[in-house]
Every structure is written in C-alpha cells, then in structure tokens.
C-alpha cells in the first residue's frame, strides 16, 4: 500500500505545479544550508584514520619556563627537538616518527616547467607505515637511510605527475633549494582529512596532499628550516643549532602502539621521562607533566571544530526550521485544496489512517524532490565554501554518507512539515465534501 501512496504522491507533484515548486524550493534551500554546514562539521569531526586512531598517540610535554609561557595549565601543542630526539631514541611503541613542516623551491628538470614552491614534511621512516600511507610506486625509506641522513624523498601523487608525467619517478632526482634527493617512492593519494598528523592548533590546516617527504634526520642535518609554527618563551642561541638546543617547540611526534591497552604503560613511561628530564635540569615548572592523546582527542585539543563552525551549524539548522514552518503553510494550502479528494476516498472506504499515510507519503515525495534540488544546492554551497580558503577546501567534501543523510534529512523534514497538514486532511468530513462537489 505504501508503494501505492508514493505513486499517488509523485503523481500529485505535477498537480498545482507552482505550489509544488515552491514547496520543493523551500525545502531545498533549508536542506542545502543545513546540510552544507553539517557536511563541513562531519568531515571536520570525522576520524581520519579509524582503523588505528586509538593506537596512534601524540605526546604533549610541559617544557614552559617558570616565568614564561601560558600559566593556565595547558600544555604546548608542539614539542622541542630535545624531547622529540629523546622520545625517538627511547624507541617506545611499535612505530614512531617526529615531524615538522618544510618547504622550498623545487627546480624541475622537465622541459617547460618553471621552478615552483613545494610544501612538505620531514618525517621518520616509520611514518608511512604508521599512517597507512599507500604507495603508488616504490616505498618509503629505511631506518638505515634515516640513520645515514640519506638524501631521499617520497613524493605526493600530484607532484610526481607534475615532474615526471606518467613515467616512473622512483630513481629520479629532485632538487629542492640546494639539495638533491633521490626519489624512493610515490604516494597514492595520501590526504587524510583532517590532516591530523600536522595539526598544531594554529589553523585548521587540512588542505590537500603533502607534496614532499624527506627524512627528519636529513632535514635536521641540512638545517632545513621549519615551515610552520615555532614557539619560544625564552632566549635561544643563534641559528638552526640554537633552536635545536633550545626549548622552542616546533615539532610533532607520533607513536603507534601495538594495542590501545598499551596506552597506560606509555603514559607511565612519559611521566618517568618527565621526572628523568627534571633531574637533568629541564622542565623547570613544578607542575611539569606529559600527556598522550590519541587521534580523536588530538582533534578536540587543537580545536578542529571551533565555536564558529558550531554556531554556523546551529544557525543553518535554525534556517531549516524557518523553511519548515513555511513548508507547513504551503502544504496546508496544497492539502486543503484537495479536501474533495479526501472526501471521495473516505466515502469509498479509506480510513483516517490510510488518508494519513497517503498524504504523509506525498509529503515524503515532496521531500525526495526537495533533496534532489537540495543536493545540488549543497554541492554549490560547498564549492562556494571551498573557494573561501584552502583550509575549508579540505572539509567541503561530500561523501556517500552525507549524500544519503541529505536525502534522509530532506524527506524527514518534509514528513515533519507534513504532519499538521496531513492531520488536517484526515479531519475532512466526507459528507460535507461530497455535498459541496
């Protein structure tokens, strides 16, 4: 019977086309506004690496000086080189990698290609396996190459294509600034959203692929400058070496545990590490401590979903509510005009429940039509959002889940808006309607 009601519902879309169009557009506008912000929120708060997000931890260590830095108990979101180096050397966890952002001018050897700027990241050999980064070609570098400070690089897909076309990139050389790197691997579309491994709370930083990966040890050896946040709360020595020796924070560190249950052991290790560093005269604050956060906790810590986004989300759903109220009015007009139809159907034996289902199905059909227009609207709004900033571009992506959710929200909204008009339709007195025919 529901199939029959839906057939009637779709049939009715063609009747009173102006009113139908108004209802569909009203629903679509509300759905587009709300679902575009929900999509952004959904992507922002999504788990970028669900298969191991509980096993990937990033430590935070309070190395602020006694009289400098925040006094609110919050820990720095980045680490000093001293801590990253120590944690790497301690070798805790199944895999581990320090990292920091780099950039430079790339000098392509391909004819017709001008020099251009590349963004990248300096990481340890474990990084690729740790992040489940897929390789299109070649592999990551080895721990031995890490130790040897080898001039090797892994390229992102787009950069490899740009430099070498569809030909092999592995074995080729790329020159970035004054260094030449031998390409050992090319990633296959590695762009987790949000790009959690680099987030440091200073921006939403989520756009696109990293183009260039080089060994962290190499980057340190060649004194590759950091492209990212560097926070210092006391005087440092000169140059790159001065920064290495300082308590400035500018690196991230990730460790992969064998299982989530090993987390408490790792946290205990961090506390022991803090205590040990204190004995060596570092971490001067009395409340100096270290904590470890998994990926989801980290996204919350760095405020990926900020208050602005939440506010926009609620505003958009408020707008959807306004659209729904309008839809109620339009549906009332549409259904009231069909009182005679209800009268005839009731006379022929339709129960109030059957009329209710029929008209609610029609509302759902309108919702379905609204979702089609609404989805087009969502894509349009997401494109608009993406054009506002590269950060937003990474989040303004619609996947199958959000596509289905958009359809459901639209249909549900239409059903909700249809409840009152439908109930009114069931109250039609058949005798009165048949007489007024």
């Amino acid at each position, binding site marked *: *019977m529901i199939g*029959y009601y839906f057939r009637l519902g779709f*049939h*009715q879309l063609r*009747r009173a086309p102006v009113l139908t169009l108004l209802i569909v557009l009203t629903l679509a506008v509300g759905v587009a506004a709300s679902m575009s912000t929900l999509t952004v929120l959904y992507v922002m708060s999504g788990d970028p690496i669900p298969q191991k997000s509980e096993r990937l931890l990033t430590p935070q260590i309070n190395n602020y000086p006694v009289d400098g830095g925040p006094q609110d108990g919050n820990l720095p979101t980045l680490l000093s080189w001293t801590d990253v180096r120590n944690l790497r050397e301690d070798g805790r966890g199944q895999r581990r990698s320090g990292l920091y952002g780099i950039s430079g001018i790339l000098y392509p050897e391909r004819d017709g290609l001008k020099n251009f700027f590349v963004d990248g990241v300096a990481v340890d050999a474990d990084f690729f396996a740790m992040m489940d980064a897929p390789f299109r070609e070649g592999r990551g570098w080895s721990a031995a190459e890490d130790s040897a400070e080898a001039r090797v690089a892994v390229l992102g897909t787009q950069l490899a294509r740009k430099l070498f076309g569809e030909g092999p990139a592995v074995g080729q050389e790329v020159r970035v600034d004054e260094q030449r790197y031998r390409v050992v691997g090319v990633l296959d579309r590695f762009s987790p959203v949000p790009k959690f491994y680099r987030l440091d709370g200073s921006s939403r930083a989520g756009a696109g692929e990293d183009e260039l990966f080089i060994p962290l040890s190499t980057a340190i050896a060649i004194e590759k400058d950091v492209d990212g946040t560097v926070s210092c709360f006391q005087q440092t020595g000169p140059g790159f070496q001065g920064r290495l020796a300082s308590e400035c924070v500018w690196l991230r560190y990730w460790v992969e545990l064998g299982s989530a249950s090993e987390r408490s052991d790792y946290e205990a290790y961090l506390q022991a590490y803090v205590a040990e560093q204190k004995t060596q005269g570092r971490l001067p604050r009395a409340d100096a401590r270290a904590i470890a956060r998994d990926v989801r906790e980290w996204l919350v810590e760095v405020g990926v979903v900020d208050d602005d986004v939440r506010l926009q989300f609620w505003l958009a759903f408020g707008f959807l509510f306004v659209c729904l109220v309008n839809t109620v009015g339009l549906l009332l007009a549409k259904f009231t005009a069909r009182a*005679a*139809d209800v*009268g*005839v*159907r*009731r*006379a*022929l*034996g*339709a*129960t*109030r*429940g*059957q009329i209710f289902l029929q008209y609610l199905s029609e509302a759902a059909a309108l919702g379905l039509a609204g979702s089609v227009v609404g989805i087009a609207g969502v894509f349009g709004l997401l494109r608009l959002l993406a054009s506002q900033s590269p950060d937003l571009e990474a989040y303004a992506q619609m996947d199958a889940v959000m596509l289905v959710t958009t359809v459901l929200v639209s249909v549900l909204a239409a059903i909700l808006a249809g409840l009152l008009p439908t109930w009114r339709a069931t109250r039609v*007195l*058949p*005798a009165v309607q*048949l*007489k007024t*025919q």
Partner: protein
Amino acid sequence: MLQMDEVQKIYRTDLVQTYALRSLSLRVAEGEFVAVTGPSGSGKTTFLNIAGLLETFDGGRYQLDGEDVSRLSDTARSRLRNIKIGFIFQSFNLIPDLDVYDNVDVPLRYRGMDGGERRRRILAALERVGLASRLRHLPSQLSGGQQQRVAIARALAGSPRILFADEPTGNLDSLMAREVMGMLEEINAQGTTIVMVTHDAELARRVHRNIHIMDGQVSDLRQPLAA
C-alpha cells in the same frame, strides 16, 4: 438489509439546533430498489449520509446487513463502507487526476486486494458499463454519462451488498439519465439492494418502493407511483 429505528440527527451551533432527522424509522429489504423522495431540506441527503455511514447520528438504532452500526468507530465504519456499500453521486465524484482504471481501483486498494484480483474486477466492472475501451482516459475526457458509468463501475467493482445513489441522473440529459437508470435496474436485478435519492418522479416510479421524507421523518411508505 437496512433497518433504522427512531434515528435522530441534530446539527448544533452555539445558538440553534436543527433537527435534520426526527425519529426516522424505515426498513429496506435485501434486493429492494427503493427511491427516497422529498422536498429540498427534508433530510433525504442526511438520511443517505447516515445510511451510507458517512455521518454519525445522535439517537436511535441503525442496523446494516444485520450489524448494529450505531456505535462503530470511524475506522470500522470506513471498513464497512468499503466492503458493503457502493456510492453513486450526482456530480460523479471521480478523482480528476486519476484515469478511469485508477478511479475504479480506489476502493479495491483500500480493501487490500492483490493486483491480479483488482485488475480482474476493474476490467469486469468497466466491461459491464461499456467503458472497457476507455481505461486510460481521464474523467475530463469523458462525457457526463460516461463519467457516471465510471462511477457505477467503481461502485460495482467492490461487489457491494447495497448501493446508495444520490440523484444519480441529476447532472445528465434525459437520454443519459435513462441509460444510467437502466443500468441501475440491471444491477438491482442481479441482487444488489439500491437506495436512490431522487427528485425525478419518473425515476421514482420505476423502482419497487418509494420512501417519502418530510421534515426529517418518513411521511409515507408507498408502492411505486402509478404512471
């Protein structure tokens, strides 16, 4: 088939109450073809609405096909309407955006019949009224007489025990009216009880029995009027 005892219907507003039916009592036997006559405002249509379970009543007792329907719920009355009653209205009351086939299909859908059975009944009913070739025509593409024949097919498709007709020829020319009346007589001859409200004396003369309603009461139970 139909028995009303002391049935009352009162329409109330804040200031007035109007007696549409005052202690109306009547019986219609199975297989009868009865004409209900009376002046405008006498309560004929109210009687028909109550008899057809389209309206409730305020007092008295009503038995339809042996079942007391006085205190039935709205849903139960709908079911009874669907199964036992067929309606034919003066203004046909076809659903304008459904074609002939789908219009006849409406009451069968509410009965929950399977597709094959519905199709068989629809085609048989339309065959019976001579419209089997117009299945996909919309009501607006048919003449008044054809529309009324569709309405008759719709009423017949559900094999009702009783047919209520409210001025079934009121909107038709005399030729069409005779044709429709002939059709009703044929239906009655095959065993369906028919109660017809009419102003048309000629039609009233053609039925088994007349019931005259005046001021909400049966004023006279007579044999068909002499020609």
